[in-house]
């Protein structure tokens, strides 16, 4: 999917990194040092609905539905995550035990129009 840039307002992935030191959480989160809280933002006019979806056929299917049902042209679809990955965290819990776990679907890797 697109990474956001200045010259487009289309659906894209905006990257944002939060360092745990900046929020004072590095005393209980041992690893990683920070978290990539990317998010999806931007327009999804109808002609791009369903892209870059899971497969180009998905876009074609959506676009045919739009035409067949004569959906009002000003409609929009939504800019949503289409691929995410887990975040592996090593931290102290409230009993000062050390816990390691993978949190699923925590990092947005790609965005697309629903």
């Amino acid at each position: 999917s697109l990474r956001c840039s200045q010259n487009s307002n289309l659906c894209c992935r905006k990257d944002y990194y939060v360092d745990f030191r900046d929020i004072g959480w590095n005393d209980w989160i041992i690893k990683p040092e920070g978290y990539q809280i990317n998010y999806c933002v931007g327009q999804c006019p109808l002609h791009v609905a369903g892209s870059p979806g899971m497969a180009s056929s998905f876009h074609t299917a959506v676009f045919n539905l739009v035409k067949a049902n004569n959906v009002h042209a000003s409609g929009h679809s939504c800019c949503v995550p289409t691929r995410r990955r887990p975040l592996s965290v090593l931290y102290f819990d409230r009993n000062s035990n050390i816990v390691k776990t993978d949190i699923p679907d925590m990092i947005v890797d790609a965005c697309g129009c629903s």
Partner: protein
Amino acid sequence: AAAEPLCPVCGAAAERRLLEETVKRQLLDKLRLPERPSPGQHLPRAALNRALRRLQEGGTRTAPGDLERGYEIISFAETEPTSPSALGLQFQFSRTQDQDVHILQAQLWLYLRLPRDLVAALTLRIFLASGEGGLVGGNRTLLSERRLRAKGSGWRAFSLMPALQSFFEGQHGTLRLELESGGDGGDLVAFLNASRSQQPFLVAKAKVREPGHQVAKR
């Protein structure tokens, strides 16, 4: 942002604050923590690194779409000598009631200094103490018994399965173990180095089924 005066820097600051709050809320939700922990005891770095190395040996990765989530836990013991040949270890655990915990592995790591000229054999027994009597008066379940032959100092691992599974299925909170030495090999407390950097610790690997992930009964 609308309330902020129209200046680029203010907008960026507002976005930053919003995202930092979102990170905090997301992490606490996903780790199922009511608020951020404040780790009490300061662990010597050497103890932390050693324990983490035990954790590296084979993990419990969570496969995508897995209904159960893998956890690995290291818990350092609070030690309480109850006699020259018996030592109490206490571990603190907390979990939310609706989590279904399945322990895959659990090992107790002890640093023992057995004198090289130790002639007689030393037997080490590990009990799970339960009931209100704590380490002395409550009832006990034998978890492990081993004759220690190798002389010299070093770390030794003792499996705590399958009894630890019953601990996690029942109550949770304080896990009490009692170590007892037998035979005329001498007193356990003298051999077990429970200094800060060689504190006994427990390594457990578990799968946790989150609530709402119950497989529909067909």
